[in-house]
């Protein structure tokens, strides 16, 4: 498995699923993060590992937009995760949308509710689509799953390539599976 040495302490946690589950008790200050918090953090990290076609890239200084289409499982978590973060000089901006038609300008689109219709609206557009196994079957370029107590994801690189979205090998390296073009 690829991964820097620095990740070892975290990787070790997997050996202690029960112990870490024990920490997840009410009022425990040292509770492990929730699944949804880690997904929110991932969403704000993805843009650094994604290349959009020139026309879709934000103008210098303009925000990079992370859009939540339909149901929003994150609440303020995603806003907190994005606050103050920059990718190549672009601040992150979180938008919440109700229909894919509003998704102009989105760079990352998290689609949870009423999946296929939303996703079809984004098909072929240079938007990194992200879906979640908790809410439905695979559909997005990145698909979150909880695997062995961790938030992981599958990557559909073929679909990303068709939309002109490039995904770095570092991100591909930690995917559970990659569907190649």
């Amino acid at each position: 498995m690829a991964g820097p040495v620095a990740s070892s302490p975290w990787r070790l946690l997997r050996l202690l699923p029960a112990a870490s589950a024990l920490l997840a008790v009410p009022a425990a200050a040292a509770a492990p993060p929730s699944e949804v918090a880690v997904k929110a953090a991932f969403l704000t990290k993805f843009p650094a590992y994604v290349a959009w076609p020139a026309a879709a890239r934000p103008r210098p200084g303009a925000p990079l937009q992370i859009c939540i289409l339909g149901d929003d499982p994150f609440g303020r978590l995603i806003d907190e995760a994005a606050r103050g973060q920059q990718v190549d000089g672009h601040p992150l901006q979180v938008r919440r949308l109700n229909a894919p038609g509003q998704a102009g300008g989105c760079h990352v689109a998290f689609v949870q509710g009423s999946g296929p219709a939303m996703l079809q609206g984004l098909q072929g557009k240079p938007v990194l689509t992200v879906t979640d196994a908790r809410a439905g079957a695979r559909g997005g370029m990145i698909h979150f799953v909880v695997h062995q107590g961790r938030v992981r994801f599958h990557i559909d690189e073929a679909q990303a390539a068709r939309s002109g979205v490039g995904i770095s090998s570092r991100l591909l390296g930690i995917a559970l599976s990659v569907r190649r073009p």
Partner: protein
Amino acid sequence: MKPGSRAAHAAGAALLALAPTTLLAETDAPETVEELRDLSIEQLAQIEVRSASKQAEPIGRAPTSIFVLTGSDIVRSAATSLPEALRLAPNLQVQQLDARQFAVTSRGFNGAESSNKLLVLIDGRSVYSTLHSGVFWELHSPLLEDVEQIEVISGPGGTLYGPNAVNGIVSVASRDARETLGGLVRGTAGPRERTLALRYGIGLGDSGAVRVYANGLDREDLPAGPAADNDDAFAGWQAGFRADLGKGADRVTLQGDIFDTDIDTMPGDGDRGHNLLARWTHDFAEERSLRVQAYYDEYRRHSQLVTDSLQTFDAEAQLNARFGSHHVVLGGGLRTTRDDFVNNLNGFHLEPQSRRLWVVNAFAQDRMALTPKLDLIAGLKLERSSFSGVETLPNLRLAWRPSARTTWWGSVSRAVRTPSRIDRQLVFLPLLAEASNFESEKLIAFEAGYRGQPGLATTLSVSLFYNLYDDIRTTEFTGNPFPIRLQNGLEGRTYGIEAWATHQLSSKWRASLGLAALNKDFHLKDGAVDLANRASLGADPDYQVLARSQVDLTDRLQLDLGLRGVDDLGTSGLGGYVEADARLAWRVSDPIELYVAGNNLLHKSHVESSDPGRAQSVERSVHLGTRLRF
């Protein structure tokens, strides 16, 4: 859309989304992403999370001696069957009896007939037999590639588990169908065994998925050991499906398996069966969830003129709720079995030959936070069997977490093994008569343990136990002198330690070490005799040691090495042994993996059980394998 209304909509969506989070925050630690912001993407992928479904099933959170075998540990190992995979758990003792049969136990009593104090669940379906309270491992060949994890708990399971959780629990969980989309082909071939497995998963609608699988195996006969050669070659298949549907608050799982195996002993010998399970989980608001599950299971074992069949219907419900500092679990279940035991080989038979049994149970457990760092767990289970009456199974535990990386725990619990059909109704007149007064075997267990991360790269778990047993089975003269009957004449204690540690030597190399040591001290009660010479206590090693190394040599090469040392089997006179397993895998390309793996590599053959009627010599075995994913 006007900017204003868009903003209003966004605010509305945010507000709606905030609602559950805010409610959660009132009863839980404040939700935060602060500590996640500075992590690398690789670190995020490795961080353990509180998942919604885990919260609905707090079973695995009990402070107890639990070892979790992950799916990746299993597919990286040389194991090709479920009981072989269980060799990876330091708190289990696995004896291979012959090519198809295994005896598995925790904390003693190992043997084909004596390892009757373990509860084994496969995706929530209990698989121990009411005939002798043991597990016929050869009836279960799940696709190991689709196993999410195996939880192994040594010691009584406490309140939440079903009947027979006396010395330990093995709970096999397969992966959600949504995580096994696409195809998998696995084939292995070697002089001792060939296997072939296929799996394919597809999405169902916008939120579901289903997979189907088939798993075939063909295993050669093992040579004679303490027992004469017993024609143990066998071949067969298991197939099945799992569908997971629903999103958000309601989730449904439907799964089933069917299997058929042939044994070489006599023409027509073999086992077959099938099962179907449905599970529905509903999340209410405010961390309250309900799980309802029902299954039907049927099998028929046929060997050497003996036919044993069992039909089981089981329904259970469990409600989890959190009130302030209390986390309450309430539940109940109903199980009915109908067995049939036909023996045309000799005079032993069950009286009556076929019987329906009913077991109902109700349980309640409260986990309360006494202080932010100290939890008290109190549980009580009542179980009533139409066979043996009412049993009370209480359980009290404390968990203290002085820091995020350390848990100390202690517990006192009572568990029983209720009488099996053999215990009470095995008859061979005039020698052996039924024993309607055979009572449950009882255990009061005292446990204490530590689990934590003493260093950044090290995890450690240490558990101590002191078990007081009463009414363990004896075989006694009850006439003048015949007939003999099975009675409850033994009492005694066991104590021991289980410990395991893992050290991450680098990001690509993990080493682990496990140890289990056991002391047994039993005596006959006043006036009792045991014509079976304490056979019910089994034959256990005083200790076993496991060592394992898992290395990613390169991005494409994996090497796993395992070593196990097992002490002699005490009074049985069988010597101890040291054996090794290894697997070298090469990922040729993303979808293709080739490997060579071997079990029991150090000796041409060794013996793991002293069973005079079953135990064969376990031979070195090597196989080539491949996994293709598409």
